[in-house]
């Protein structure tokens, strides 16, 4: 491979856009920079030639704030490249263009406390039981979060003959109902735990837990399976592929044991390859299901049951674990 040297012939020629603060462009790196270059081969008989490199950075942040809600949108555009008018003398024939969009919208309200005639004083921890009782009757105290993201990039040589695309997108929705809302009261996932809480003397009693409302995350991603031995064995090589996945999580207090809380945690994940080759489908490598559930005592033991497989860790179909958390103070 020939080694080339790039000379910046007109290094001072920068085309830059000014920064516009928080609502527009931000940061010193923002803008467009084009640098004309002279490429001089360090070996061989090829003569040199002109070209240019470019770097584009543009970020747009939009923030909309209110007392108890906010929306943040971040858009980052990045492009880098090294272009020679005679491509044979380009020492770094590589262009990369990427776009990243992140959007977060959150709303939250506080549970109602300390109304007229109330025995709850939020500034006095001695009144915490009265505050808990009021919170359980509260129609306020709900929260909603929507988190979305999109990442896409294209890498290529300067003639776009070799091209590699990557992308990913996700959407997470978290709804936490108010304690006395219908959604919280009717959530069937919490019914067995409500019963055990009531029977074990947990302070929440038979009341529902807003943490038990399911949380959902959807994602689509481009996977580079370079270390996937199974796919290599079946396909001979490891081309990139697209995969969708779903995750549903919940937690809930289960009860009270020795004065401490027992908690339940659960997560279910499903991965599905989009448009898989027949051989991958026949081998059952196009989809994976994984579920994990755990019971844990506050600063004590933890019992975990996991079943199914994750795409990157395919060991074991079902695992029971019993452990004790050791505190190092």
């Amino acid at each position: 491979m020939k080694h080339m040297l790039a000379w910046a012939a007109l290094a001072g020629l920068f085309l830059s856009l000014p920064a516009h603060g928080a609502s527009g462009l931000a940061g010193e790196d923002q803008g467009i920079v084009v640098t004309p270059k002279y490429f001089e081969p360090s070996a061989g008989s090829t003569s040199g030639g002109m070209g240019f490199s470019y770097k584009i950075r543009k970020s747009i942040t939009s923030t909309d704030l209110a007392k108890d809600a906010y929306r943040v949108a971040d858009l980052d555009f990045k492009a880098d490249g090294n272009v020679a008018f005679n491509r044979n003398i380009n020492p770094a024939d590589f262009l990369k263009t990427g776009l990243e969009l992140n959007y977060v919208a959150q709303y939250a309200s506080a549970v109602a406390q300390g109304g007229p005639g109330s025995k709850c004083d939020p500034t006095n921890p001695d009144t915490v039981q009265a505050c808990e009782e009021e919170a359980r009757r509260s129609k306020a105290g709900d929260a909603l979060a929507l988190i979305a993201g999109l990442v896409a990039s294209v890498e290529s040589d300067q003639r776009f003959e070799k091209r590699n695309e990557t992308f990913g997108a996700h959407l997470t929705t978290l709804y936490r109902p108010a304690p006395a809302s219908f959604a919280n009261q009717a959530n069937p996932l919490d019914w067995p735990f409500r019963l055990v809480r009531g029977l074990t003397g947990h302070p929440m009693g038979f009341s529902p837990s807003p943490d038990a409302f399911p949380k959902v995350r959807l994602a689509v991603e481009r996977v580079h399976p370079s270390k996937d031995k199974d796919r290599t064995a079946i396909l001979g090589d490891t081309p990139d592929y697209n995969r969708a996945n779903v995750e549903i999580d919940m937690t809930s207090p289960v009860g009270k044991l020795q004065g401490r809380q027992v908690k339940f945690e659960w997560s279910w994940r499903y991965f599905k390859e989009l448009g898989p080759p027949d051989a991958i489908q026949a081998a059952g490598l196009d989809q994976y299901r994984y579920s994990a559930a755990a019971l844990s005592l506050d600063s004590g033991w933890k019992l975990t049951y996991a079943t199914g497989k994750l795409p990157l860790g395919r060991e074991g179909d079902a695992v029971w674990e019993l452990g004790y958390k050791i505190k190092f103070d």
Partner: protein
Amino acid sequence: MAELDRSKQADVSAFMFMRVNGQSIRPFVSTDASPGMGTQKMSDLTYFNSAGSQDMLKAVAAQIAHMLMVYINTYYTQQRESAFEDKTVPQIVRVFADVLVDPGKTVHDLASTVDKVFRYKNEGSAAVPVAAMTADQPLSAAVKKRLERIGIN
């Protein structure tokens, strides 16, 4: 590990938030029957799901962080310490979420972070510097008369 302190409203607000939102059943300080909430790890609070993905945990931590901020603003204070006066709500949420997502951090750690961000009533008020600034300002006769009526000379 450190216990919560009743004289610190930041500690009280973190404790009350966790209890009224069903995250913990521990008492304010340790008793013979139960350890205090100050020593409780994030991983033992109800919202913390070690079975789920890290992406989901970060999202849940940000939601709890926002709820904590709204709770403190509603029942304790809206004033911030000078280092956080110019921060936006999402920036403050990120500060709290960084603690909430760390399984090894304790409620005492969270309360300390809350204390660094918010200025509570017993820690002085932004009104004090304003009063100091206006102390030497001449008052009009009408304003003096109104102040005398309400007992301020």
